[in-house]
């Protein structure tokens, strides 16, 4: 697969503040690449370098073989982007904003633009200032997709979208992939990346700590299940089950909290032997996952970085 995004030893610092250090990865054409990391990990800094909003201290970043800084105007002809904290002129309507950016791109297919507007159910007649957070996000998403760019660079694109529109967004990304376009998507939500991406890179404290196929997420994906029973249950019934990494009893033995990794099938079948009152599943934040996965096993991030596939 030809690499369409090539990042090599990219480093950027903000004075004393950390940015990113020695970040290297490649994204192949037609790939949907997830860029995962907790808040402040360096995802937005990487994207801002790719979009030539900031200049790297060292290293290189290329899109379609062109240097992101030197050839930024050429690159942006084939890129659509959603910034992390989009801000637009509050006095313009959604329609005016879309028309303005369409003009700055030299015009777009109006039919496709209207399709996107219908699809995300955006009222283009309202002023940007009057939009809810979700509707503001829709405007920014549409402007990124409307010219059918070869590369989409999306910084936490579904933040603020309701589940229905998130689903619609997933469909848009899927279609982009089917049409052979490339998507670079940053997120701090594991499940979102799992759903839409083919490959992922994980960044933490400015360094890329893991990169590989989406199935590798299983290694780090952990969640919790809490089951409340009508009577006390023996904890041993769950401790040895496949996927369970830790068990804790609650409510005088009438509830168990299970730390999980992988499939919950064995747990559900074991719980069925007892009268269940409720079952709740909780997906920890990526920060929690990192804290447990990368620190509890005692392996520093740099060492893990050596495992980059």
């Amino acid at each position, binding site marked *: 697969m030809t690499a369409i995004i090539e990042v090599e030893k990219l480093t950027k610092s903000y004075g004393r503040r950390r940015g990113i250090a020695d970040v290297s990865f490649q994204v192949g054409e037609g790939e949907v690449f997830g860029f995962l990391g907790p808040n402040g990990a360096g995802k937005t800094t990487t994207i*801002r370098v790719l979009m*030539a*909003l900031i200049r790297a201290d060292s290293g290189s970043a290329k899109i379609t073989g062109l240097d992101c800084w030197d050839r930024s105007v050429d690159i942006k002809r084939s890129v659509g982007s959603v910034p992390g904290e989009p801000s637009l002129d509050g006095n313009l309507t959604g329609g005016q904003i879309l028309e303005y*950016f369409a*003009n*700055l791109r030299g015009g777009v297919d109006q039919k496709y633009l209207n399709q996107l507007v219908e699809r995300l159910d955006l009222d283009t007649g309202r002023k940007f200032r009057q939009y809810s957070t979700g509707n503001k996000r829709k405007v920014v998403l549409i402007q990124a997709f409307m010219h059918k760019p070869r590369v989409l660079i999306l910084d936490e694109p579904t933040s603020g979208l309701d589940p229905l529109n998130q689903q619609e967004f997933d469909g848009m990304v899927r279609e982009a992939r089917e049409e052979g376009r490339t998507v670079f998507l940053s997120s701090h939500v594991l499940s979102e990346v799992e759903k839409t991406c083919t490959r992922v890179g994980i960044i933490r404290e400015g360094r890329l700590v893991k990169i590989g196929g989406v199935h590798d997420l299983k290694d780090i994906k952990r969640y919790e299940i809490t089951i409340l029973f009508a009577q006390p249950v023996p904890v041993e019934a769950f401790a040895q089950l496949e996927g369970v990494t830790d068990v804790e009893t609650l409510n005088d033995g009438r509830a168990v909290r299970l730390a999980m990794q992988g499939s919950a099938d064995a747990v559900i079948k074991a719980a069925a032997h007892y009268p269940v009152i409720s079952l709740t599943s909780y997906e920890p934040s990526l920060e929690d996952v990192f804290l447990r996965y990368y620190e509890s096993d005692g392996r520093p991030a740099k060492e893990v970085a050596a495992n980059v596939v």
Partner: protein
Amino acid sequence: MWFRNVFLKTLRDYRIAIIGWGVGMGLVIVSPMASVAALISTPAQHAALASIAAQFAWNADPVKADTVGGYATFKIGVFAFIACIWPLLAASRMLRGEEDRGSLDVLLSAPRTRLSIALQKVAAMWSALLVIGLISGVIAYLGGRAFKGDFTLADGLMWGLDLALICMIFGGVALLISQFTHERGPAAGATGALLVVFIVVDMVHRVIPGTDWFSRLSPIYYYNLSKPLITSYGTSAGGMLAMLAMAMVLTGAALWLFVRRDVGDAVKVPWLDRMAHPAAPSRSLPVSDWSLRSVYMRSLGMIAVPTFWWTLGFAAFAAWMIVAVRQLADKMNALLAGAQGSPAIAVLKNIGGGSSTELNGLLLGAMFELMPVLLMAFAVTQVNRWSADEDEGRLEIVLSTPQSRAAVLLGRFAALATATVIVGVVTLATAAVAAAIGGVALDGGNLAAATLGMIPLGLLIAAIGYLAAGWLRTAADTGLLSFLLAAWFFISFIGPDLKWPDATLRLSPFYYYGTPLLHGMELANLAVVLGVGAVALTLGSLRFARKDIGV
């Protein structure tokens, strides 16, 4: 300590403004004191100064202009009201600006009533204004002592209080207007326009006899009732109380509306809403709006409304000045005819020559001093929007389109250049028509030079603003430009009286603007201003092309 409550936190936010404006206004009032001694060394010069001052009554009441306090009061005249710029900006930012940024939502989530929060903010601004008045009053007193003025510390402080009260009024106006706007910019702009209108309304009674009733409509009239630096004139308690009452009513009305309206929304005025939304917006695309075709057109669209109001203000001001000149010219001609050989006439003839065209040019020229300053102030407000757009992330999506950074910056600059040209041309047309109708003889070429010659000055400060925005954030950029504007004006306004060397006077762009109504525009001077502007713009473009955005 400073984060204990809203009042202290807000006061802390104002600390630089308090020192800057306090010292700045102090220096503004002290500067003319330095030159008065040289102007009144003989009895004849005393008489000449008092006589000339009387002909420039449009600027200020010529009371005891041959004394240190009187001359300072007269010389500063309408320029004292630049002090109102800070409360105007601060008050429009106080609630509306915070709503814009969303920070008011967080503040209002604290267990405090809206009224309590708003009152603490207003109290902080009023306290800041009183401290500014205190600092400038003390500096005025020290200046008076240094240059043998006869006013006391109490007089100096009363002058500072008078200034603080007029500032409170315009702060109240801005706060009230900001309850009806969705952004702070229009509120600040409208208050600025009202400030100019009120200055002119106050001027009327000094130029046209029998119009005292009309000038009473302006709060500035009540400011001028007190002249504390002139010991024989003193302070008007009634005037000050009237100003305090106005400030309280305006601020009270603003707070009354604030606690009743939705946060993030404006007070609903049906006819204003109809003007803002003449027809139901269409959902279908494209919307085919002329202002969306390019960065330049969009930038022009963004500044269309403020340009319209500023142009209207300039045109009205120019027309008013023509009317005022006609009144003054009659008085001046009588003076010229009846007092041949006096030092005052010699001075006037020296400056202006003898014909009525030259006399009109002299009078109008003195009033025209304000016009380039105002045009540059307009440019500063527009540059402020550029740096705010970058600070607030509005450039990021524009820069994600295939537009070079230089094209984006130059598009914005070109729109501002277009706006300044429109202001200049409309002002020229209005002044010419008003002169023709009013029968005021003016040299057409010189009038064109005076109005169109302002344009390069506007472009110069804009270019410097774009350059500085490469390093500075919005507040610092605007502060720098305001400081430059004040410093340049100071150099050109006070420098000649203080016999500053030519090299110092040349540091101000107003030097190159010269006195076009009398002497026309020198192309070499024009080239200097345009050249420096072009260099600043080129450097600004280069810097913008290389800088990290939003860092």
